[in-house]
C-alpha cells in the first residue's frame, strides 16, 4: 500500500492518478481518499487500528493533513483531529511507500516511489 498525505488542495489525487496512470474516474476503484474523516468514527485505539488494517487493503490511501492549526475549542473536533493524526501514523506504518504532496510536488518520506510510474 502507498500512503499519500499532504495539506488541503495540494494536488494529492492528481499525483496518485499520474502515479497509477489512471483517470480521476478510475481512481475510486484503486484508491480511497479523505480517510482523515473516517477516523472520528473509531471509538477507541483498537477500532482505529482495525480501520487502518482495512484501509491498508487498498492500493493507495490518501489523507489530508489536518493537525496544523490551532487546537479546536470543541471537544468533538479536538478528538476527531487527534484520531485523524493517529490514523495517519498507523497508515504510514503499514505502507511500503509514503509520499507527501505539497503544491503538487511529491516527496517520498518512506520507501521507494520510483517503482510507480512517476
Amino acid at each position, binding site marked *: 500500500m502507498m500512503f499519500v498525505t499532504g*495539506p*488541503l*488542495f*495540494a494536488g494529492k489525487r492528481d499525483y496518485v492518478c499520474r502515479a497509477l496512470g489512471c483517470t480521476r474516474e478510475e481512481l475510486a476503484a484503486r484508491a480511497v481518499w479523505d480517510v482523515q474523516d473516517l477516523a472520528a468514527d473509531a471509538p477507541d485505539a483498537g477500532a482505529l487500528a482495525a480501520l487502518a488494517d482495512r484501509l491498508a487493503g487498498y492500493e493507495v490511501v490518501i489523507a489530508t493533513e489536518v493537525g496544523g*492549526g490551532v487546537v479546536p475549542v470543541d471537544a468533538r473536533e479536538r478528538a476527531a483531529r487527534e484520531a485523524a493524526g493517529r490514523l495517519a501514523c498507523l497508515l504510514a506504518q503499514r505502507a511500503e511507500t509514503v509520499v507527501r504532496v*505539497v*503544491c503538487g*510536488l511529491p516527496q517520498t518520506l518512506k520507501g521507494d516511489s520510483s517503482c510507480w510510474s512517476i
Partner: protein
Amino acid sequence: MMTLVIGGAASGKSEFAEALARQFASPRVYIATMQPFGEEALARIRKHRDRRARMGFTTLECYTGLATACDALPGNASVLLECLGNLVANERYSPDGGGEGAALAGVLCLADRCRDLVVVTNEVFSGGSDYEGDTLGYLRELANANRALAARADRVVELTVGLPNWLKGGPTQSEEENPH
C-alpha cells in the same frame, strides 16, 4: 530563474527569500503587497523599505492589478514578491480587486517579464477544512495558484524552522557557498 518559497507563519521564509534575492543582479525590485492600515503598519513599512534600500532593492507597492504594475518595472529586473497570500486576498476582497484568478494571472505576467523572480507564499492548508464564510474559497484559490506557480517555477522550497526543504530543484553553487 523563478523560485517559489512556501512556509507557515514565522517559518523563516521571508529571510530565506531575501537571501536568495540579494544575490540577484541589479536592478532589484521588491514588490510589497500588504495594504497599510494605520500608523503602526506605516511605520513598519517605512522601516522595512529603508532596510531593503540598503540592500539595493527599490520597493514597488502593488496591492491589486499586478499585471498592469509590471509595466513600471525596469527592463531585465529581478524581483522579490511577498506575498501571494496577501495578493490573492487583495484581488478577491478589495473593492478594486480583479476577483478570482487575478492574482495568479498577475504573477504569471510578472514571471514573463523579469529575469529572476522569487515568490513568497503561505502554507495555511494543514488546519482542517471547517471554516466559515469564504475562507475555504480563499484557500482553494491560493492552493490553485501555489500549484500553478510550483509547476511553472524552476525551483520550489518549503521552509520549516528556518531550514529549506527543496521540493523541486536546489540551491545554486553560489547560494551554497554564501548561505544566508
